[in-house]
């Protein structure tokens, strides 16, 4: 069986303690949460950290609550809890859409939202979900906390705004009235990473789309935030033609690579189709018309 290289291990008992450990141990230290991205890389010896700081005891980072007009999700909240949260499903149903198709139920028992976002794999679903939902994230270091938008969070492929001695501690989703959202994914098989996936959110205002969020997974080096399509939608009445136009923009604005999941043209096609589908469903939900 594949086995990781040797490392030293410590368990954090507080967020600040974890940050202090990271500062002390330097660049060869990594935080381990659910471990379902990091450990497979370590077994393949693609990641060889010298120190692991285990933050699984930080149960204070496991929560989904409504506070100050936001849904706030602790970084250690596991996929299974995101899937089951009625509060989250009520305000942001795209989380439940995504969580039914992220990996498999057993993996979802371990993997965390913080781990998923910090891995920053462009094929990962939650990054697109959070971008579409206009989330921001709270990053804490020894110097204190800062709040970063998803656009600011995604620095590059597998790279985020979280510094070497920082920890992502919370995801914040602003709750606005008359919203609806949906996530659509095409995968080769249940549990696989996306060939392409699209997250969409709309907030209705007087019969038109007041604001929209659209983001794509697996069709670029990072999560693709389709701002041009969001602009198109703002202030317009929802219609299939409008969504088709938004889908066309999504197809154009993504930059997929050809791989075992499919060629570029297929992925562009999917970006368009899934954007349309997600928008249609998001709008139906916002209007309480979902079939």
């Amino acid at each position, binding site marked *: *069986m594949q086995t990781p290289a040797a490392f030293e291990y410590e368990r954090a008992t507080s967020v600040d303690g974890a940050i202090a450990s990271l500062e002390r141990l330097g660049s060869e230290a990594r935080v381990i949460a659910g471990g379902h991205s990091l*450990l*497979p890389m370590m077994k393949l010896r693609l990641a060889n950290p010298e120190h*692991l700081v*285990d933050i699984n005891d930080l149960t204070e980072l496991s929560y989904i609550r409504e506070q100050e007009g936001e849904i706030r999700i602790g970084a250690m909240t596991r996929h299974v809890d995101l899937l089951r949260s009625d509060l989250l499903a009520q305000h942001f149903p795209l989380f439940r859409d995504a969580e039914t198709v992220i990996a498999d139920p*057993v993996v979802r028992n*371990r993997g965390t939202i913080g781990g998923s976002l910090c891995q920053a794999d462009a094929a990962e679903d939650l990054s697109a979900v959070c971008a579409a939902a206009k989330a921001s994230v709270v990053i804490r270091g020894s110097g204190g906390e800062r709040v970063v938008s998803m656009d600011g969070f995604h620095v590059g492929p597998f790279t985020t705004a979280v510094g070497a001695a920082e920890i992502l501690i919370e995801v914040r989703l602003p709750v606005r009235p008359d919203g609806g959202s949906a996530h659509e994914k095409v995968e080769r098989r249940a549990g696989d990473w996306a060939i392409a996936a699209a997250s969409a959110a709309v907030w209705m205002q007087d019969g038109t789309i007041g604001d929209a969020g659209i983001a794509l997974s697996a069709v670029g080096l990072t999560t693709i935030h389709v701002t041009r399509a969001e602009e198109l939608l703002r202030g317009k009445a929802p219609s299939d033609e409008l969504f088709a136009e938004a889908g066309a923009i999504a197809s154009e604005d993504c930059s997929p690579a050809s791989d075992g999941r499919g060629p570029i043209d297929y992925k562009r096609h999917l970006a368009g189709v899934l954007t349309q589908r997600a928008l249609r469903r998001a709008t139906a939900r916002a209007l309480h018309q979902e079939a």
Partner: protein
Amino acid sequence: MTINVSMTVNGAQVSHDIEPRMLLVHFVRETLELTGTHWGCDTSNCGACVVRIDGQPVKSCTILAAMCDGHEVATVESLEVEGQLDPIQMGFHERHALQCGFCTPGMLMTTRALLDENPDPTDHEIRVAISGAICRCTGYKNIVSAVRWAAEHEAATANREG
């Protein structure tokens, strides 16, 4: 470099000095000699290594033993209690839900957890629950049937016992 880990495994307290990098599946199989838990893939795709940690099914090939310090681990060896098979074990036998038997421990732990949470799952719910577990032999049909058997058996037993 070793560290000490202590945890409850199948109800018994265990404590061992191990390398931090030891995977839970190896701790269970090699250190504790509980070989009912298998491994099949390295990448958390196959589910042969599923055990329960604090009641939740997890893939023990993708968790460090050190991460389980202070927690409760249950393996397939915990299912039979004082010579009484768990209904899920009986169901797998009754409905021919195993052939080579290699995926069986993981399937049993996964579906036992399902029934603990959802005593009356639909066929589709069962299929979703085991979708992170690969069986190369059965085509899953009889596994679904076995879980239904166990669910019905447990419901009947509960009714009888009022």
